[in-house]
């Protein structure tokens, strides 16, 4: 947790479990299980996963919206869940989250300026005039025209609303922002604008991001390192470039090959791994390796023995018995040649 220079990591997630009560008695949803990683200051840490992978729960736990059931989350080496309620409220200012749906996060009865100013009002920072000036400055930093400040959410576009949400998260000058599917609802050209804005703000405010998305392209574009989640567990953790070039885990390989490429036929990667079956329910996760029910290279051992989370190559972690080793031949039934 502490490197040689004595600097403390901004975020440490250590063997984290988050369990929810199910609908029935004694039923448990293990949304996140045994997840551990460290995020360095100024880094963009990507988290990719499909529905039910636990990526959003992880994001919420990082900013103390959900308590861990086991393990720890450390902010600059300190456990925020050990703080008193009032200390936590103050501490939270440094760790913000932005959600996918820009509508849900803005109060329809507040103007954009009021929404952006609200966190300052709640925190009681400065005078009313200072707070207004600060909020206006943030709107400028996210490139929202000043004439939009007095509009209501329904009067502006989805992209503009998402900018307002970013301004709202930034106004308390956080150190870390969890971005949970922040570009998923946007059209591709607006999405590009927004990704550029995130990069610009990171430089200007020396921000650390935990960037959660289901979109491999987006995550790989913005992140330094990427964690791949499946059914509550980490499958792989690697620098973004390495993950895109040569994923070690069969699930990462399938995700990468499932991503459609906007390239002419002769330039495309010709093989696609089509996974069988459905994403398992976190209510009833598979035994052994969580991915074994859909894994093209699974052997009998995978159903009984859970693979160890290990550093396969320097800086590259994976939970697969075969990661880095020669793999058993992939059956042809799961690999199909692409058309047309």
């Amino acid at each position, binding site marked *: 947790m502490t490197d040689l220079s004595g600097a403390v990591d901004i975020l440490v997630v250590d063997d984290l479990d988050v369990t929810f009560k199910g609908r029935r008695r004694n039923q448990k949803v293990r949304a996140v299980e045994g997840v551990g990683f460290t995020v360095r200051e100024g880094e963009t840490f990507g988290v990719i996963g*499909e*529905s039910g992978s636990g990526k959003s729960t992880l994001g919420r736990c990082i900013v103390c919206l959900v308590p861990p059931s086991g393990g720890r989350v450390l902010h600059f080496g300190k456990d925020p869940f050990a703080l008193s309620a009032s200390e936590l409220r103050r501490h939270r200012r440094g760790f913000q989250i932005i959600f996918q749906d820009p509508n849900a996060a803005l109060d329809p009865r507040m103007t954009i300026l009021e929404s952006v100013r609200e966190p300052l009002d709640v925190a009681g920072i400065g005078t009313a005039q200072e707070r207004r000036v600060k909020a206006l400055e943030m709107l400028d930093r996210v490139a929202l025209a000043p004439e939009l400040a007095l509009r209501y959410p329904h009067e502006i*576009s989805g*992209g503009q609303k998402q900018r307002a949400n970013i301004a709202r998260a930034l106004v308390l000058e956080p150190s870390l922002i969890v971005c949970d599917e922040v570009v998923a609802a946007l*059209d*591709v*050209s*607006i*999405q*590009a*604008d927004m*990704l*550029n804005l995130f*990069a610009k703000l990171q430089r200007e405010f020396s921000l650390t991001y935990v960037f959660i998305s*289901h*979109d*491999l*392209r*987006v995550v*790989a*574009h*913005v992140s330094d390192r990427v964690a791949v989640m499946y059914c509550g567990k980490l499958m792989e953790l690697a620098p*973004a*470039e390495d993950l*895109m070039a040569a994923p070690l885990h069969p699930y990462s390989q*399938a*995700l990468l*090959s*499932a*991503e*459609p*490429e*906007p*390239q*002419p*036929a*002769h*330039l*495309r990667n010709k093989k*696609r791994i*089509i*996974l069988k079956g*459905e*994403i398992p329910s976190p209510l009833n996760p598979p035994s052994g390796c969580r991915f074994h029910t*859909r894994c093209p290279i699974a052997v009998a051992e995978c159903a009984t023995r859970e693979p160890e989370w290990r550093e396969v190559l320097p800086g590259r972690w994976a939970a697969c018995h075969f990661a880095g080793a020669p793999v058993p031949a992939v059956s042809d039934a799961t690999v*199909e040649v*692409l*058309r*047309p």
Partner: protein
Amino acid sequence: MSDAVAMAVERAGVAPPGKALLSIRDLCVSFRDDSGWTQVLNNVSLAVNPGETVGIVGESGCGKSLTALSILGLLQKRDVLRTGEINFEGRDLAKLSEAEMRRVRGRHIGMIFQEPMSALDPVFTVGDQITETVRTHFNVSRREANERAVAALAAVRIASPQNVVSMYPMSLSGGMRQRVMIAMALVCEPRLLIADEPTTALDVTIQAQIMDLLLDLGQRTGTAILFITHNLGLVAESCTRMLTMYAGQVVEDGPVDKILMQPKHPYTAGLLGSVPQPRQRKSLLPSIPGRVPSPHEMPSGCRFAPRCTYVQPPCLAPQALLSADAERQVRCRRYDELTLPGAIS
């Protein structure tokens, strides 16, 4: 519309009639609201040949879904004005009565929409809904309809179709629901399938399954597919021809691979450039400034001009759909002089 534009549109009349399965000419749609009539589709022309998969791409509000709904005659009749020809198997669908249209929909043209849950009725079983489609269009017994429903579910690779027929949509996952939708759309063996964002609500590994299924079925049954999506990757991997729509117009039309290699319309190039590429990690993404104009504030000239990097004064006059070569059309007067970045630039 000026004469020059009218002529160009005339010339742009896609594949020769009679050969194409579906051929749309000069489809215009207007809506009426408090401020009068507003045109939302402007002279849309397109053709789908038998067995072909054609993609329509564009951002929200460009008229992709509206084109699909117009073909199917699913726009409401009040306060909507539709002109132009929709030739399908030798008939002009635009001239059919609602009763005649009902015999075409579901029987000769199947459809799948983005959100399967809103297209499935929650109070009927999967089997009820598929047999209803079969019995509406074919004079068959309940029992035979049920057999066809089971066979259709098996065809979409549902593992235990006998069980799934008696299930309700709510107990199925998103991917399974979309399979049921596909089964329902294909059970009458239509000649054309209109798929409007069929995988947008699904996870990427499930999307891969559904796309594979859709294309496999299309190929095996010879069903042509009109595939509407915002995802250029899906178009690249599934379609032979594509159209780009912008602000209610077709701005580019041609073979997918040629357009991807070298788009001729700046909007198509802009869409391609906005997709993050693994090789350009962390770099500034080329985005398209501004956004799609609303139908009320449509630019009078080239509709893309306010957002276009290559705009010149003559672009402020209306642009016709021009034939770039035998296979390609583009609504940009500068297409010949511009070298736009494609997928591999």
